[in-house]
């Protein structure tokens, strides 16, 4: 890969085939893609188009059958499981469709979880948690547990958890799917704003029109291949 600090993800002929009930499923059939730092992009496509598999591969959660993936300058296939864990911990933030906060931990504990894995001091963690809670408009709620807050608030906490350690890349899977339209729009605007402020790269997997409308770039997958790659002008 050409050493270019602007490129955060580069994929080269990535393929993923797997067997399901004896039948070979070709989920990804050769994707060449470059995601640049600071992008606010969306991977879209119908169900079964390979969005989820592709995102799993670029985040090191799954391994490709063929092809190469670089995250910044790291070739994922050359990394051990432990190194991949550390890479995800330090460089990728995940936002899931169903929020997926740990229900027995408080809002503060959920947000500080990744920092704890990174070995950040208690005072520093607390400071950052309060700072990001203020940023997402949830100050004073740090002691509440996920079941005691609304779905929109849970997704805000999930965003805070993904962003608090300032990773280079945020991968968001259908982040608005479980939210009403207003809350979804509000959260997308918040993420857009954070993208502008921090320069973090956001990559969504989505069906949501609102996400596509706000994205700088929309990559459409169909049958495991890139069908369209549309870039918009900066808003």
């Amino acid at each position, binding site marked *: 890969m050409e050493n270019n600090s602007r490129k955060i993800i580069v994929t080269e002929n990535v393929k993923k085939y797997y067997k399901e009930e004896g039948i070979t499923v070709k989920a990804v059939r050769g994707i060449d893609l470059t995601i640049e730092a600071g992008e606010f992009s969306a991977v879209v496509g119908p169900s079964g188009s390979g969005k*989820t598999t592709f995102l799993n591969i670029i985040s090191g959660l799954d391994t490709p059958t063929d092809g190469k993936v670089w995250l910044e300058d790291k070739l994922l296939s050359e990394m051990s*499981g432990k190194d991949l864990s550390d890479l995800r911990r330090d460089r990728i933030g995940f936002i899931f469709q169903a929020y997926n906060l740990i229900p027995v931990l408080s809002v503060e504990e959920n947000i500080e979880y990744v920092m704890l894995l990174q070995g950040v001091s208690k005072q520093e963690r607390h400071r950052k948690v309060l700072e990001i809670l203020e940023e997402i408009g949830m100050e004073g709620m740090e002691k509440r547990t996920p079941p005691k807050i609304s779905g929109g608030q849970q997704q805000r906490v999930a965003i805070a958890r993904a962003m608090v350690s300032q990773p280079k890349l945020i991968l968001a899977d259908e982040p608005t799917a479980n939210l009403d339209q207003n809350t979804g729009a509000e959260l997308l605007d918040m993420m857009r704003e954070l993208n502008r402020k921090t320069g973090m790269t956001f990559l969504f997997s989505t069906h949501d029109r609102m996400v596509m409308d706000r994205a700088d770039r929309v990559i459409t997958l169909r049958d495991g291949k890139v069908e369209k790659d549309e870039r918009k002008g900066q808003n």
Partner: protein
Amino acid sequence: MWFDMKLAWRNILRNKRRTLIAGIAIGVGLGAMIFTDALMIGMKDNMIESATKSFLGEGQIHRQGFRLTQEVEKTINNLDEIVSNLEKEKAVDRYALRTVTFGMITSPANVSSVMVYGIQPRAEVYLSQIDDVIESGNYFEGEEEREIVIGSGLAELLEVGLGDRTVITVTQAQSGDLVQEMFRVSGIYHFNVKEMDTGMAFVRLSKAQQMLGIGKEGHEIVLKFQEIRFATKKNNPFWSKYSGDQNEAVSWTVLLPQLEAILGIFWISLLVMGIILFGIVAFGIVNTLFMSLYERMFEFGVIRAIGTRPSGVRRLILLEAGALSVLSITLGVLLGTVVTLIFANVGIDYRGIEIAGTSIHEMLYPVIHIQQYVIYPVAVFFFTLFIGLYPATVASKIQISRALRKSL
């Protein structure tokens, strides 16, 4: 680590009912182990006491070979010196001299072979329980030299009662002549052990010495120590000290090897029971942890996705296993203690039961011992962690993308 412990504890309490059921199941296993151990100690003490207190004593001194042949002339060598030394032994609580010989006992109705014991009635009170199990008559209370105390089975066989005459025939030591003496039955005992009730007869030591023609000598010194554990130590120098001059001093463990073997079997049965209980505990732990694991598979996918290493997941599951074991141990210790204390107060009635030739005379009381609160809880804790390794390893090896299939 502290954070992981907090998380593990909260995870365990997430499904309180399931955790409580698993905790009770494991706790019942531990409680049963504690109670069984206490019962075994109680039974062991009871059997040893029953065996040694009945008549055997905690140790004996004889001439070498006497135990095998029971020849009349094999009296203890240097008896005076031995007695003098025993007087100075702080560990020795009581001792008494006996003569032991084969003999015939005859009544107008019947005849039987018996072991005729010449005893010192006053000293024997502290060393055997003949006086405690007198069924009729008395235990050498009179001054009459020709009193004989026999067992209920023998009395029945000879068809004799109190005051009836019997004739004892024994062989004299030096001449080998047969000697006969008439005795009146002054007491009948009932030990509830067939061999003792039908095969033994007790006369005064002086009369027995006279009949056997052995002067002031004797065949057996029976011993009771200040502390029974003193007798149980096989390498105790006491035994070698009194095993010189062609004499031998032996512990009850040598005199009654079948009892020691039975006690050994007790511990083996406890071990087998422990293995079974620990097996049940293992299934309980694995089941609980796996149910919890599969319920939260997606959550493990999430924590792995956000950067937790496989070792971190393994540690978390092991901490959950540890938390479950701490809860279970608390329940088990409480349960075991309560049950043991109840039975330690009311006792268990095994009286009259004969095991390995030993009749249980006393109520059986479980004995609480510190080992029950150290060995078993510690074993359960580490066993739980060991068993937890399996679900922990499974959790650490989950395929993250599969665990997250419903989302990213």
